[in-house]
């Protein structure tokens, strides 16, 4: 992202954000509420288009695409997204929720391939063992944490090259949150992961690289080890202390 600024109805949300996200890492964007973290993610997958009055300046290159000028539907085929509130499709079964993502993106050509993709995605999301005998149940029969892992499986079934996670554990219990974090860390060999969180401890647990966002600007960024032991800005230190 280069000099990206976002305005929503004349209010500036992001200010000249420049970031380089390395492939096959877990890149965490940290910051207090209202700092523009979710907006930043939505610029990457062009879900910002759904926001009325949104205007973007700057340039964004994602997986070789010029994200701001490409067809958003084409772009989104390569990007999986998991949202803060678990949102599995309620009218589809657990199997169908994962399968639909694979079908739409042409990942599986036959029934057998589809079954394999669904199993693989559920295993990667660490949900397979809990749902293998109830694939025809509906999501409302799952707990909140299981629903969120189902959303992760759905995103993975697209075989994306980039995975965006917007505070994925914000609304689930601590046990499921840990399982989800383990799943996220295990993915980085195959996928680039960009995660947004307001919890510095979660960032400490999963991140390879961290960017600290405050009031729409990147105040500090770098390898996680460096930032978590020796932050160079007062804003970052306050964030780590939980004072923001």
């Amino acid at each position: 992202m280069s000099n990206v600024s976002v305005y929503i109805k004349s209010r500036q949300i992001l200010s000249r954000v420049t970031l380089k996200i390395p492939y096959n890492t877990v890149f965490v964007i940290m910051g207090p509420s209202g700092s523009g973290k979710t907006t930043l993610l939505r610029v990457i997958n062009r879900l910002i288009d759904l926001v009325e009055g949104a205007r973007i300046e700057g340039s964004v290159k994602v997986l070789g695409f010029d994200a701001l000028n490409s067809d958003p539907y084409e772009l989104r085929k390569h990007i999986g997204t998991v949202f803060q509130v678990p949102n599995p499709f309620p009218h589809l079964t657990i199997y169908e929720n994962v399968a639909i993502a694979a079908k739409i993106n042409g990942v599986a050509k036959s029934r057998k391939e589809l079954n394999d993709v669904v199993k693989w995605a559920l295993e990667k999301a660490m949900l397979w063992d809990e749902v293998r005998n109830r694939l025809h149940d509906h999501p409302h029969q799952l707990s909140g944490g299981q629903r969120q892992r189902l959303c992760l499986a759905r995103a993975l079934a697209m075989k994306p090259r980039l995975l965006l996670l917007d505070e994925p554990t914000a609304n689930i219990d601590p046990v499921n949150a840990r399982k989800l974090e383990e799943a996220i860390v295990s993915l980085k060999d195959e996928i680039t992961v960009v995660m947004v969180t307001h919890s510095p401890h979660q960032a400490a647990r999963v991140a390879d690289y961290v960017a600290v966002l405050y009031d729409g600007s990147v105040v500090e960024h770098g390898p996680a080890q460096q930032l978590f032991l020796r932050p160079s800005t007062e804003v970052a230190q306050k964030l780590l202390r939980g004072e923001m």
Partner: protein
Amino acid sequence: MYSWRKLREKLFTGLVIALSLLAIAPVLHLIATVFVNGLTVIAEAGLGFFTGLPPTPLSRELGGIAPSIAGTLIMTALSLPSTVLLGLFAAILTTEFPKNPLSVAIDAVAKSLASIPTIAVSMIVYTLVVIPMRGFSALAGAIALTIIALPYAYTYFSTALRSVPSIYREAAFAVAMSRWSTVTRVFIPIARRSAVVGVLMTMARVMGETAALLFTAGRFRASVALSPTAPADSIPLLIFDYILSPYTIWHRVAWGATALLLIAYMAVFIATKLVVKEVKL
């Protein structure tokens, strides 16, 4: 203090139950009256009530209301699909592109169409369809019914689509679904119960409309007309005409027709509850 509080609670509960019964009593009375008066007629007439022609005023046989049943079915079959499709597409347009000038216009038109008196619609269709066709017809009746039912269908479908939380739109976009796929594969299936209820409410509106058919359908009861361009009758029209007549036998046929209409409505709504499963969010 304790027993006074309990007493107050019981009094309040009793009051709520009594007022609720009072509210539904007229409906229950209505249903009971219709069934008592109507079912006896149908029982007496037997299967002939559905297959026979209406009796003459001085006849002793009850006969049947086959032309009205056929007319109602034909006009419903003609107007319902177009009403549902137009209403659904209009609802999809206004839900997906709410700020589009066309959406704003559709919304405004739907609201104003609903307030036009149905008899005025009947007169308009008479002028625009019946006169050029040089005669009444089921088609003219169907057109009038479509115009009347369209705003309601649009409102039902629009409400159904808007009731789906927007998080599912984001989820659909996130798995790279197009706008159209999002509506057809996510929104409509999630709101399917509301959508089906919308269809049924439209059907109920269409089946039970009387004033719209006064100057359009033709009130043809001499035989069963199957052609859409021929004059037809409908059950509500028959009830309207026969109840106002001075003949007892026609009053009885009207009661029978009313009971049949009510049974049809109840069957459809019960079927909805059993067949269409609500999507639990």
